């Protein structure tokens, strides 16, 4: 411990630090530093020291109030509601991680409840990422991230087949235009081999151009490339909705607008949680709370890591800008190599596209203390846009947004049964490639739950009624004219286009509104159907979507929200209304 303190003092001589180390190798840092960035730097430095497994960062920043969520009123409200449910498994958080786990555990005879503090699935990091199913070549060999990324990538094929979401195996290529950069490719190749990336190849210039004809069009002399055929693209919210719907069809319950505010333990074992909808009894609690996972773990008496949100801003371009390449291409240059060599934890920058062929620029990467700050700034947007080519400018941007990566200081996933509180499972620090790894993460958690059940002498039993398939939903825009004609004949509601920019029909919106996990806000409809995602950003279709939402949910127009509680779009009616009940 003295060594650790010394090393930190040497690196940060101006900071008064005190440290504590427990027998698990969890280092807790106390003291005051000058800035948030410095606080994060100290955490990272500490996590790399020998003997340190992970870091709990209790440092303060001089003169800066670090936002803290106050669970007390939520806890009191929940307690006063009394017992609300008694289940076998409680999952906290309905991002890709929580929904993936719920879906996989649904194959057993288990009563599963997912609580989510926002009004929908996929509202955390899961809605604001690049949708890349990375091959797993970029992760540090030997890490959990690397292993689960490669495995998750492979498992996506099965998920896509069973759940019917779009998965495009576009492949990726890092290419060089200078012979001198072969060593960089070779280095990447060896790393990819170490991680077990399937199908990775080093290819010469001619073969590279064969694999990606776009390289010929752009008339750059390609000297060689690393080809990664398993790279794939998804719409992250589409995957998450599919998982949640399939889980719900197999009996999993979802409670939205429900915050977990405390974990209840007895004799070192989890027995339940206090949520804002009341007390939920459960002997298995799975913490998938994204940026809040450290706080949930602390509630369970297991303070063993700290999440420091790392914001990423992404810009979406108009579909009129089509991607230059079919696969994701990365030009490896001396400059990019230099940047990689500089110690950095970000997976920032770059240009990719979505399965719908919108180009994505970014993300940026910046540390900020506020877990709910998703604001954007000119600086961050400029960073996100900076890695494109000269032909792209701001007039192509139809939307930009931010997501917070739930990073810890060891910069690896934390997945496992808590050694302090039995039955409490952390699935935390799921930053990039958390989306790519999701099926493997779910599989790993499934094993942990099964082992715990085995240990208790109540092994998990398969539910014979489990249905892994989710029926495909019609997507009008992807059908041929003849198929569209047939669809409208079957149900005329597919003949009315609600969202002009993305060609989304009333039928598709109604399908979503009547699905097992129905959307409750305009943005939730947008994530399920794409209505409002196009270049006009809902300018034309929002009133129509709002009307359908109000009608299907049996609420008045003024109760419809953009993105959940507190975000009403219309404040009041300006004319007398007879029908439709009370308008407040």
């Amino acid at each position, binding site marked *: 411990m003295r060594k650790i303190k010394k090393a930190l003092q040497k690196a940060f001589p101006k900071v008064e630090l005190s440290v504590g180390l427990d027998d698990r190798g969890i280092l807790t840092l106390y003291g005051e530093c000058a800035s948030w960035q410095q606080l994060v730097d100290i955490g990272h430095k500490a996590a790399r020291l020998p003997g340190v497994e992970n870091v709990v960062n209790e440092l303060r920043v001089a003169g800066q109030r670090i936002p803290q969520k106050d669970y007390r009123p939520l806890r009191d409200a929940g307690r006063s509601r009394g017992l609300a449910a008694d289940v076998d498994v409680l999952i906290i958080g309905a991002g890709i991680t929580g929904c993936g786990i719920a879906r996989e555990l649904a194959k057993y005879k288990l009563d599963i409840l997912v609580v989510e503090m926002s009004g929908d699935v996929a509202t955390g990091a899961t809605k604001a990422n690049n949708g890349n199913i990375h091959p797993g070549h970029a992760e540090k060999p030997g890490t959990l991230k690397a292993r689960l990324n490669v495995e998750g990538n492979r498992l996506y094929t099965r998920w896509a087949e069973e759940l019917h979401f779009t998965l495009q195996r576009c492949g990726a290529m890092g290419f060089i235009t200078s012979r001198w950069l072969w060593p960089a490719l070779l280095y990447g190749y060896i790393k990819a081999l170490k991680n077990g990336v399937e199908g990775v190849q080093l290819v010469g210039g001619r073969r590279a151009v064969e694999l990606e004809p776009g390289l010929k069009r752009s008339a750059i002399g390609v000297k060689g490339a690393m080809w990664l055929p398993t790279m794939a693209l998804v719409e992250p919210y589409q995957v998450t909705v599919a998982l949640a719907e399939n889980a719900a069809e197999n009996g999993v319950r979802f409670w939205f607008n429900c915050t977990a505010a405390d974990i209840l333990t007895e004799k070192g074992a989890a027995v339940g949680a206090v949520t804002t909808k009341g007390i939920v009894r459960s002997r298995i609690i799975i913490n998938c709370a994204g940026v809040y996972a450290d706080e949930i773990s602390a509630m369970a008496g297991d303070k063993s890591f700290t999440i420091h949100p790392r914001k990423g801003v992404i810009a979406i371009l108009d579909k009129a800008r089509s991607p230059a390449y079919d696969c994701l291409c990365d030009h490896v240059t001396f400059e990019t190599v230099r940047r990689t060599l500089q110690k950095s934890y970000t997976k920032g920058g770059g240009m990719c596209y979505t399965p719908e062929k919108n180009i994505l620029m970014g993300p940026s990467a910046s540390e900020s203390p506020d877990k709910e700050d998703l*604001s954007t700034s000119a600086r961050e947007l400029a960073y996100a846009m900076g890695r494109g080519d000269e032909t792209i400018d701001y007039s192509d941007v139809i939307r930009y947004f931010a997501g917070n990566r739930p990073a810890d200081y060891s910069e690896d996933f934390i997945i496992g049964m808590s050694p302090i509180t039995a039955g409490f499972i952390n699935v935390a620090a799921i930053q990039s490639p958390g989306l790519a790894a999701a099926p493997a993460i779910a599989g790993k958690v499934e094993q942990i739950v099964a082992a715990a059940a085995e240990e208790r002498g109540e092994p998990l039993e398969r539910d014979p009624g489990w249905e892994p398939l989710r029926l495909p939903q019609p997507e009008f825009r992807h059908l041929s004219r003849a198929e569209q004609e047939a669809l409208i004949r079957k149900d005329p509601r597919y003949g009315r286009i609600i969202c*002009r920019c993305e060609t989304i029909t009333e039928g598709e919106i109604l399908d979503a509104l009547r699905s097992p996990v129905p959307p409750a806000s305009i943005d939730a409809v947008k994530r399920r159907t794409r209505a409002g995602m196009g270049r006009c950003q809902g300018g034309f279709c929002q*009133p129509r979507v709002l009307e359908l939402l109000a009608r299907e949910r049996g609420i008045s127009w003024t109760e419809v929200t953009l993105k959940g509680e507190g975000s009403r779009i219309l404040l009041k*009616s300006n004319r007398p209304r007879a029908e439709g009940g009370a308008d407040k």
Partner: protein
Amino acid sequence: MKRVEIDIAVIGGGPAGLAAALKARELGAEKVLILERNIELGGILQQCIHDGFGIHRFDKRLSGTQYAQLFIDAVEQSDIAVKLDTMVLEIGADKTIYACNKSEGMLEINSGAIVLAMGCRERTASQVLIHGDRPAGVLTAGAVQRYINMEGYLPGSKAVILGSGDIGLIMARRMILEGLAVEGVYEVMAAPGGLTRNLVQCLDDFEIPLHLSTTVTAVHGRKRVEAVTVAQVDGAMKPVAGTERRIECDLLVLAVGLIPENELSRAAGVEIDPRSGGPLLDENFMTGVPGIFAAGNVAVVFDLVDYVSASGEIAAAGAVNYLRGKLGEEKSRRPVKAGENVNFVVPQRLGRECGETTFFLRVSSPQKAATLSCCSGKKLLFKKRCRFLAPPEMLTFTADASGGDELVIALKEEAGRR
């Protein structure tokens, strides 16, 4: 799939489409069809309940709905076919139209000529680089207008308006009349974007302040707008540090410009003029694809509906002549150039024997007095003295532009009148 054969297909039933259909029928086209995705004709005019429409054409101040109704009535009395609630999905380069609706399913429409009249859409917050949070309560002026005038709901109680174009000004007044507070109108440019009459009638009369060279830089509020930051901008339109001001409000209304809806046109192979945002047009308002014409705001953002209707009639006359084989496939179209202080001119090119042609143009910067000239080489075709010119007010003139070479249209400031 249902197949339809038609002489002229008009895409969009706003004022441009209505005028085009009526004119085409009047000039003798037999089978004219209007395709409109809304459940009624009239386009954007159906949400414009303020007056000021038809001043040039009817010498009357009508509301948008009244203006539209005159045309709708005429269409209803004619044998022009109308398909409502029908969305055009695609126009092929061979002019085959695919459209769909609930009752007929997918339609394949073959027509002799097409008039594009799809109107325009509004610029959004991301397109003007507003930062900060992305809560409820940020809406375009057109959306606010729709909610208030057509759906009957108020989307806020205290508004800040960004953009002093006509739509922004009209909505400022409308919101005051509906009992909302309007904190002010902010305009990034040094001059207002709307017509003078709207500045007087919508802002001055209601004592709503207009802040020029000022923009909204950020939105605050994670769920619903709580405030915005405004800042002054320098000559390069960059916010000036230190001039930021936070304004409490719960609604940000964006009136930051219109974009012609040319996605269908592009896919059909129509070439777009980056300056006007609409197709490159000739004197008949025909695009670069023979037989495809454009009218109204899809051709160029007009500010007065009277011009919109006029453009529909030009396009219709062209379409009828095209059907009759009277428009030779002229390869040698002469360019029309925007000269001094002219931002753009429509049409952008002319046939050799174009005859009497109406030009629509916008100036680049305000001028108190100037001489408009239209020259073909050394030859002066048209000359007119103009006063109080500003970019928001479209200029129009008609001249015989037959013969000669490329045309240059320019506005020379009159000496000593600065």
